[in-house]
């Protein structure tokens, strides 16, 4: 009787975990560059019936795994589909229309990837993002004599000075071999913990995506989809709690054998 209560428990627990994930997605529906998380369900491994004292017919091989044990959730994975690009009044805000990533260097000289950056010129003439991290680019000139307002970014990632049109840099875009292996490190940055191959865009920027100046990428959470999923999950949770109730009633019945 105890093992069947555990089956219901495993179900409730999985749906609980799914609810956590869904709430996190819903809470981030307006977070720039947020990629929705998903979690899937997996049936648990089964056992044989032979040793449980269950009456089995002669035709049934007692090694057949007819005893099921419930469900669990898979590990989380992200849905890296592109979110909607939203126009902003900030001309220094850059987003990518395509599957590439911007690269920035953190304080340990590690490359972090991100989908949204707001460029500005730092004190020593580098191009940095909103958190002061150096943006990875080529053909870079010292920018200390220009101001932020002078910058103009082309669709292919070239950085120009508005007056005169001099090219002062070229943004490098990155494409990881397998996005699922990126690790979110917060603030919309992704690290590369198991150093997988990441291709750089040098010379073929367009195939990595078009840069949109004055745009930011919103989260790719579809609120409708999440809410529907949430309703289904809650109902499934409820159903599993009912099944535990029923199993509990059965146990009670067994306990009342001697009235």
């Amino acid at each position, binding site marked *: 009787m105890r093992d069947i209560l555990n089956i219901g428990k495993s179900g409730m627990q999985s749906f609980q975990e799914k609810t956590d994930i869904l709430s996190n997605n819903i809470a981030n529906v307006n977070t720039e560059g947020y990629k929705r998380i998903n979690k899937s369900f997996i049936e648990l*491994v089964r056992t044989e019936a032979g040793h449980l004292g269950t*009456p089995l017919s002669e035709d049934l091989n007692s090694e057949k*795994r007819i005893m099921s044990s419930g*469900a669990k959730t898979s590990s989380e994975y992200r849905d890296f589909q592109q979110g909607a690009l939203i126009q902003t009044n900030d001309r220094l805000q850059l987003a990518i229309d395509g599957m590439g990533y911007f690269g920035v260097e953190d304080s340990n000289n590690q490359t972090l990837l991100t989908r949204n950056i707001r460029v500005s010129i730092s004190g020593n003439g580098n191009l940095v993002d909103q958190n002061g991290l150096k943006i990875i680019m080529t053909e870079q000139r010292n920018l200390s004599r220009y101001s932020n307002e002078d910058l103009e970014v082309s669709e292919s990632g070239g950085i120009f000075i508005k007056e005169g049109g001099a090219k002062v840099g070229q943004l490098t875009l990155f494409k990881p071999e397998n996005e699922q292996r990126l690790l979110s490190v917060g603030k919309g940055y992704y690290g590369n913990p198991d150093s997988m191959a990441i291709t750089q865009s040098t010379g073929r920027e367009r195939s990595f995506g078009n840069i949109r100046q004055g745009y930011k990428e919103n989260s790719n959470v579809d609120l409708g989809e999440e809410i529907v999923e949430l309703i289904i999950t809650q109902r499934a949770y409820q*159903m599993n709690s009912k099944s535990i109730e029923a199993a509990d009633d059965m146990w009670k019945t067994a306990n009342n054998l001697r009235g």
Partner: protein
Amino acid sequence: MMRALFTATSGMIVQERKQANVMNNLANVQTVGFKVEDLITKEVQQSTLQNRERLETGESYMREIGKIGFGTQIDKLFVDFEQGMLEETHRNTDFAIDGEGFFKIQWNENEIGYTRNGEFQVDLNGYLCTLEGKRVLGREDQPIRIGSNEFVVEEDGRILVDGIQRNQFQIVTFDTIEELNPLGQSVYSIENGIEVDVNNTKILQKHLEKSNVNPLEEMVKMIEISRTYESNQRIIQSLDRVLEKSVNQVGRV
């Protein structure tokens, strides 16, 4: 009398297993590629009752009274392989089989598993595997190596990376589909099964096959189970009362 007690007990144990089965179906109502299961029960084989009687001459002989069954037992596990609903997703590594057939995966070193759960991922070495890390098999039962996450799968199962065919899903089915044994994780194995190629089956990329559990049916089954369980308990109770009478009242002076 004692025999009847065990008959009713077998009923209770079997109903408990059936409840476990329903609870597992309900826990997997959202599990990709899960197939609803049912425990089929049957009566324990009937025995013939005989009574020894004596003729007027004093000779004894056996008279057949009739047949009687002694309770119930689990006969088999029935898996309903009916196709679940296909749902569109955004992932490149999500696949659904529209039509009959199974994906082949390496369950363990020397066992091949069959599944309709096409929720795959690319592992660290670039192989296509299930969410639990079991590798998916392609042509000649070799694991499918893709490398990058960017690839296209045609409806006939051909896997294209940058437009070049890399491998092909091997989708097979069996004439004796009822012989498949569930291993868990929506994977099945078969002993002495002969793989048959499938016709008119389409592989859909960015789709998943949902569980085919019908919650309503399971809830009704659950009511049926708990009532049957209760009835069996009542039978034991009334047998207990009859026994009590024969022990405490019959023969009292």
